[in-house]
C-alpha cells in the first residue's frame, strides 16, 4: 500500500515557483496513482481566485492546470476556510471542487496523512 501524501500549497501563484512546484508534485503523484491530497492554505488560496490574467506576467495559466487535477486522479482537494475569509475570497464560488475546512478539521486532515509537504 503506498503512503498517502498531503501537499500544502501556501504561496500565491505569482510569488515564485512554489505554487507550480506544489501542483507538479500533485500531478506527478496522481499520474502514478499515489493517494494524494492537496490543501490550499494562507496565500495559496489566491490560486483559486477567478479570472486571473497570467499572460500579463508572461506566465502559464495555473488555474487551467489546477482543473486537470481530477483527470490526474487527484480528487482530495481542500482549502482553509480561514485563509479564504482573511483574503475576502469566502463569498465567491470556488473554481475547483475543493472541500472548505476550518482549523480543527485541518489539524485532523494533516494527522490522517502518512506524509506532508508544505511549499
Amino acid at each position, binding site marked *: 500500500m503506498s503512503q498517502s501524501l498531503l501537499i500544502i500549497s501556501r504561496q500565491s501563484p505569482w510569488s515564485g515557483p512554489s505554487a507550480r512546484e506544489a501542483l507538479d508534485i500533485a500531478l506527478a503523484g496522481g499520474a502514478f496513482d499515489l493517494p494524494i491530497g492537496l490543501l490550499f492554505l494562507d496565500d495559496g488560496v489566491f490560486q483559486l481566485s477567478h479570472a486571473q490574467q497570467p499572460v500579463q506576467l508572461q506566465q502559464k495559466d495555473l488555474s487551467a492546470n489546477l482543473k*486537470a487535477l481530477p483527470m490526474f486522479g487527484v480528487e482530495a482537494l481542500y482549502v482553509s476556510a480561514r485563509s479564504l475569509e482573511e483574503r475576502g475570497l469566502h463569498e465567491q464560488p470556488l473554481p475547483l471542487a475543493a472541500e472548505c475546512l476550518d482549523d480543527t478539521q485541518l489539524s485532523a486532515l494533516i494527522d490522517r496523512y502518512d506524509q506532508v509537504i508544505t511549499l
Partner: protein
Amino acid sequence: MSSLQLDVRQLPVDKDGYLIELADWSEAAAAALAEREGIELTDAHWEILWLIRDFYAEFQLSPANRPLIKFVASKLGSEKGNSLHLNRLFNGAPAKLSAKLAGLPKPTNCL
C-alpha cells in the same frame, strides 16, 4: 536546432522531435511527424489527436498516460479509452507520442 521539413518550410523541433511552436502545427505537420515515427495516421489516430488538443486547450498541459486514458474514456467511451487501444496506436508510448504528433509540448509528468 533540429527541424521538420514540411514542403518548403523548416519547422523547428526540440531534441526529442517535439514542435517548438504550437502555431506551427497543421494536419500536414502531424502526418510528417508521424512518418518519422513510422506511423501512418488513420481515423483512429486522428480522433485521439484532436481530443488531446482539446485537453491541452482546456488544461494548458499535455496529459500523462493515466489522465490521457481517463480523458479519452470520458469522451469516446472505454472501448477507446484503454491502454491496449492507445498503446497499439502510438507504439506503446501514447502520452508522449500523441502529444508529439498533436504538436503539443512533451508531457512533463511522464517519467
